[in-house]
């Protein structure tokens, strides 16, 4: 009886995951979709706690289970509620890492059971007492979970600026070597004597953690969204390994669904940047950009524009296009941005937003940010539509975006971002760039756009500049 109800719980959970993901793909139903998936998750968790039977025995240790769930819920809710919108990518990366670590820990405990059960046997090979499939699901969960955990933590550190890009000669080969060692250690564990199987297993886990670190370390900022998405799908697969291990369909459907969807999302993002997944995986971004040397004077001088000139220019134009970037997110300037839009509208100026798919630190980052400030959905143009409209635009206001408007992506084959589709802002009549300084963007490359005659620089923190600009425009 209990078991059939449990199966039903898992069935409901699986269906809610599918429905939830489906509803998440439509703005009108997205929020409900998320809640439905959460409800399904709650059912699956409650069912597992009270109905799961292991060899005919109910689960014990309720104190520990509830204790863990309560601690996790409190920390999870608090961090999720308190964190600023700018730190969303970090947070997703963090929670993803937690899931990966959880999957790895499950595998480690399950391995330990196998090890304890069989260690007393005299001179038997591990492969004789444990079926290959069973071992495979355990070790795969451990490896993928560890890579996902270590990788997510490094991505988190890089996003928050605590860890710098780090690469050295022959890093690709080194990474592949570490990966090969991980697999070799996993195979060796299986082929070894049961008495000593735990040591190579822990070496496998350690190497997998190491691989996770070196996997993300050399990858430059422009690739961070791709990496998070990829690690997200990794954790999905790790969860699915648990599904195999416990013959649990909820874990399997949830895990594989995320694994497949996450992989596709990753590929879509790579395509948006015109790079292959393999290229990203090997992590070649950081190294190549250094060869440029980044000589500032090579493009000549840039010119600055005053706030009042900017205000005049914008107030008397017909159409203004705003290009938001990470700088807008850092400055939390989305509300001021929306006010500027409203003010210009009152003055009869048409205002639209041009959103590059990888502007900010995650795909859709800008959309979320502007949505927070109540910017109308229909004013956000995707890249292709925006590029069509730049020709008829009078003023482009770039707020803290850099690499996504770099013309080098189109005309400089030696540039590391060559081939990435960019917003063709230089088609507009005037370009005003708001930045804090002349420092290059996250990809670490110089932007020729800033030195073009059409372009003027407006230095300062995006929020402060926008607020001052608002006052100036009101006075014109």
């Amino acid at each position: 009886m209990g078991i059939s109800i449990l199966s039903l719980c898992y069935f409901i959970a699986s269906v809610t995951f599918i429905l939830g993901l489906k509803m998440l793909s439509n703005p009108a139903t997205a929020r409900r979709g998320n809640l439905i998936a959460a409800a399904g998750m709650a059912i699956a968790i409650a069912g597992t706690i009270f109905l799961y039977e292991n060899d005919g025995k109910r689960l014990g240790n309720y104190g520990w289970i509830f204790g863990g769930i309560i601690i996790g819920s409190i920390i999870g809710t608090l961090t999720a509620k308190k964190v600023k919108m700018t730190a969303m990518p970090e947070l997703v990366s963090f929670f993803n890492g937690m899931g990966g670590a959880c999957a790895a820990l499950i595998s480690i405990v399950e391995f330990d059971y196998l090890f304890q059960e069989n260690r007393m046997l005299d001179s038997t090979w591990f492969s004789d007492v444990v079926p290959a499939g069973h071992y495979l699901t355990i070790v795969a969960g451990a490896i993928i979970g560890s890579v996902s955990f270590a990788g997510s933590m490094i991505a988190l550190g890089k996003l928050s600026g605590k860890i710098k890009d780090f690469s050295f000669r022959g890093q690709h080969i080194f990474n592949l070597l570490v990966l090969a060692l991980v697999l070799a250690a996993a195979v060796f564990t299986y082929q070894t004597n049961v008495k000593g199987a735990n040591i190579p297993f822990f070496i496998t886990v350690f190497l997998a953690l190491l691989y996770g670190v070196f996997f993300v370390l050399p990858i430059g900022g422009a690739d961070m969204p791709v990496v998070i998405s990829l690690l997200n799908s990794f954790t999905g697969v790790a969860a699915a390994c648990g599904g195999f291990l416990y013959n649990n369909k909820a874990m399997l459907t949830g895990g594989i669904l995320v694994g497949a969807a996450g992989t596709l999302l990753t590929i879509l993002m790579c395509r948006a940047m015109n790079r292959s997944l393999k290229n990203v995986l090997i992590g070649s971004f950081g190294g190549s950009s250094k060869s440029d040397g980044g000589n500032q004077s090579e493009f000549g001088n840039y010119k600055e524009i005053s706030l009042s000139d900017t205000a005049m220019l914008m107030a008397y134009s017909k159409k203004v296009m705003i290009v938001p970037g990470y700088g807008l997110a850092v400055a939390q300037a989305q509300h001021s941005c929306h006010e500027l839009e409203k003010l210009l509208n009152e003055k009869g100026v048409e205002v639209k937003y041009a959103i590059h798919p990888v502007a900010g630190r995650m795909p859709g980052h800008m959309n979320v940010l502007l949505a927070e400030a109540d910017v109308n959905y229909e004013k956000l143009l995707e890249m292709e539509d925006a590029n069509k409209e730049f020709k008829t635009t009078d003023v482009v206001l770039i707020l803290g975006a850099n690499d996504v408007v770099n013309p080098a992506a189109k005309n400089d084959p030696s540039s590391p971002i060559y081939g990435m589709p960019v917003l063709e802002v230089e088609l507009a009549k005037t370009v005003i760039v708001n930045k804090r300084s002349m420092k290059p963007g996250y990809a670490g490359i110089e932007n020729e756009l800033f030195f073009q005659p059409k372009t003027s620089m407006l230095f300062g923190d995006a929020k402060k500049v926008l607020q001052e600009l608002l006052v100036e425009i009101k006075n014109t």
Partner: protein
Amino acid sequence: MQAILNFINQNVELIYIVILMIFLGIEIIGRVPSVLHTPLMSGANAIHGVVIIGAIIVMGKAENDNYIALMLGFLAVILGTLNVVGGFVVTDRMLEMFKKKK
């Protein structure tokens, strides 16, 4: 070779699910507007928190004197819960902002 065949044979039902879910996952994501990429990634992130079920099982079947299993299982439950609860709450927070639209 025999081992692999055995594994497939024993888990044929699960393997069917895997194949179907791969196609379903791709199908669902294929139609997502780029606006929703971040919430979707976050939502998917919460869903793979289903790994918590494994953590609960590990924790629940640990013997009272098996301290390794107890400790690691406990940690796994905490981390898994973080993933699930944090993931759903963050996604909800992001989507809340879309809701006010007409």
